């Protein structure tokens, strides 16, 4: 059990490329922190540096108050779960789980006791004498977890431990990991590219992009107050909608219609001396079917429904806004990472609204939507900063 502190941690490869730039992060004892970002953002490199599998070029890394920059992985007392599980194929489940203890020269009886205990927690007792090749994906994943927990390490490091599982199992294992972590109270750093995993598992989430930390915060903070366009577009599913807008003293002129600025927005925008052309970000739930709206405040826009997806609990209404799609470096990176760039959704900007299931929206029919400006964000297109973020 220990806190992990990164101070100005940087990874530069021999060819000069920077994988991780100047990361400052304090992970409290017992905290569950998620590193999330698209592939190549430096999250795995950061984790490997904490594990000691990659050298730290600059900065200091402290685990439990001790500077461990130059310590070998074995001296750091951390356990790691790999995406490939990395089970030793020639050893049985029992031997796999006992391997760290065997290396630590723990006596045989203690090893047996601890392995059995972990196996009980993970529901692996009947598989203890099998080889990994004879286990299913989910069982292998649990063995990998078991190998980490038998040691009672200072910290768990997990590198996309669930991404090789199918969707249903992933959800189950997610809950199980969460439960085990709470029970053991071990500091955990968890790497994933899946923002749903990040939002559901973490006490705090670190969003990274191109080796830089974009924002650190609780899932709710990231969702409600993204610091920039990248975090805004990355967190949330369906993703935040973005439209071009021109800023006048008291309205935002968007292809959807004019949205009057409220006091909060006006104040923040003035304080930051916002440019004339901005990007407005609206979460799908910022829209509401006007005919079902409880309060009548807020501006309304009328749009034509392209596609209606009814999920029973909610209805997703897709429509397009005039004018080309919003394009910035951040959004393009997000699109290419999620594969959206390949779906050919060019042309007009596509917008998704999450409406109450009782909506009377019909495909091809116009519908009036009320916009909750309290949930709107305004971004500077040049650098992606959220101009309506209360602190930055």
């Amino acid at each position, binding site marked *: 059990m220990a806190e992990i502190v990164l101070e100005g941690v940087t990874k530069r490869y021999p060819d000069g490329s920077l994988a991780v730039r100047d990361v400052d992060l304090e992970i409290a004892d017992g905290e569950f922190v998620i590193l999330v970002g698209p592939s190549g953002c430096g999250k795995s490199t950061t984790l*490997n540096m904490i*594990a*000691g*599998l990659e050298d730290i070029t600059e900065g200091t890394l402290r685990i439990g108050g001790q500077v461990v920059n130059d310590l*070998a*992985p*074995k001296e750091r007392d*951390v*356990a*790691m779960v*790999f*995406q*490939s*599980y*990395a*089970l*030793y*194929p*020639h050893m049985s489940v029992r031997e796999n789980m006992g*391997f*760290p203890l065997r*290396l*630590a020269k723990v006596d045989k009886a203690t090893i047996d006791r601890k392995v059995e205990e972990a196996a009980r927690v993970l529901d692996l007792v009947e598989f203890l004498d099998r080889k*990994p*090749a004879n286990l299913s994906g989910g069982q*292998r994943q649990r063995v990998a977890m078991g*190998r980490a927990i038998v*040691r009672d390490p200072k910290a768990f*490091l997990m590198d996309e431990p669930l991404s090789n599982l199918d969707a249903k199992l992933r959800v189950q294992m997610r809950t199980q990991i969460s439960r085990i972590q709470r029970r053991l109270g071990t500091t955990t750093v968890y790497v994933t590219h899946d923002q749903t995993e990040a939002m559901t598992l973490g006490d705090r989430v670190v969003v990274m992009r191109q080796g830089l930390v974009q924002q650190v915060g609780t899932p709710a903070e990231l969702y409600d107050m993204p610091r920039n366009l990248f975090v805004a577009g990355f967190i949330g599913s369906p993703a935040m909608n973005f439209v071009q807008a021109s800023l006048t003293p008291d309205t935002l002129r968007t292809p959807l219609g004019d949205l009057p600025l409220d006091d909060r927005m006006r104040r923040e925008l003035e304080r930051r001396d916002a440019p004339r052309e901005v990007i407005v970000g609206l979460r799908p739930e910022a829209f509401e079917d006007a005919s079902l709206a409880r309060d009548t405040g807020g501006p309304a826009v009328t749009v034509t429904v392209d596609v209606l997806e009814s999920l029973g609990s909610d209805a997703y209404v897709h429509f397009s806004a005039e004018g080309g799609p919003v394009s910035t470096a951040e959004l393009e990176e997000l699109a290419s990472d999620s594969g959206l760039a390949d779906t050919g959704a060019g042309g007009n900007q596509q917008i998704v609204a999450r409406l109450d299931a009782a909506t009377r929206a019909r495909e091809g029919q116009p519908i009036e939507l009320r916009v909750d400006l309290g949930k709107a964000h305004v971004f500077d297109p040049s650098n992606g900063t959220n101009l309506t973020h209360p602190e930055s």
Partner: protein
Amino acid sequence: MAAAGRSHATRWGVVNVVVVLYALFPVWWIVALSFKTPSTLTDGSYIPTDWTWENYKGIFQTSEFTRALINSIGIALIATVIAVILGTMAAYAVARLRFPGKQLLIGMSLLIAMFPPISLVSPLFNIERSIGIFDTWPGLIIPYMTFSLPLAIYTLSAFFREIPWDLEKAAKVDGATPAQAFRLVIVPLAAPGVFTTAILVFIFCWNDFLFAISLTSTESARTVPAAIAFFTGSSQFQQPTGSIAAAAVVITVPIIIFVLLFQRRIVAGLTSGAVKG
């Protein structure tokens, strides 16, 4: 359809028989010769008319052959063990580490394999004479090792490459030193590869004639293939053909047994390297 299948099978059967006969005919010829008596040796029949064990008894009565057999076994085994140990470590480095001069190392080892051994025999002869290892076990072990190492490195590095790197990382995080990770995780997984390599290297050393004949002068280090060349008949009027044939059969047998015993291992090793986590 069935008829077509049958004629297809027949065609394959015929081809197989022809190939097997073609490959085994010289072997049978030697075996037949080894069982013939001196008088029937040149009768040209494929099956000995007059079976005898005399040739086998004969070669085991002289130290010429028995001593050579001991040399052969000792030299081939020692060379194999050293080549496999060095090869395993070198192959691991080649497969896993990035170090300056790696390409050069790979190139050099390939270069050794490309040199026709005959071109190196005279220099080796002179070197060994001047440093005093001519006609000794090390005098053969060292060149065997040298020439089989490229083979060992190539085969083994292919195996090492197939072992997921994550396993070593996992071992390191689990608290293994690099040496422990290598010994407890990598080597057991590469075992089929190590085995295959060992057998190939052993066969190379066992069968070599060129170095054996050039770098030895007495019984003290002469291996069987070379010793056979020095066989004489029991009198000067007698051809040693029968003894040569018997000796050839005797040294072929261990190889055949080896390959039959480990056939499955070799094939499994060559094809799968099955290390899927």
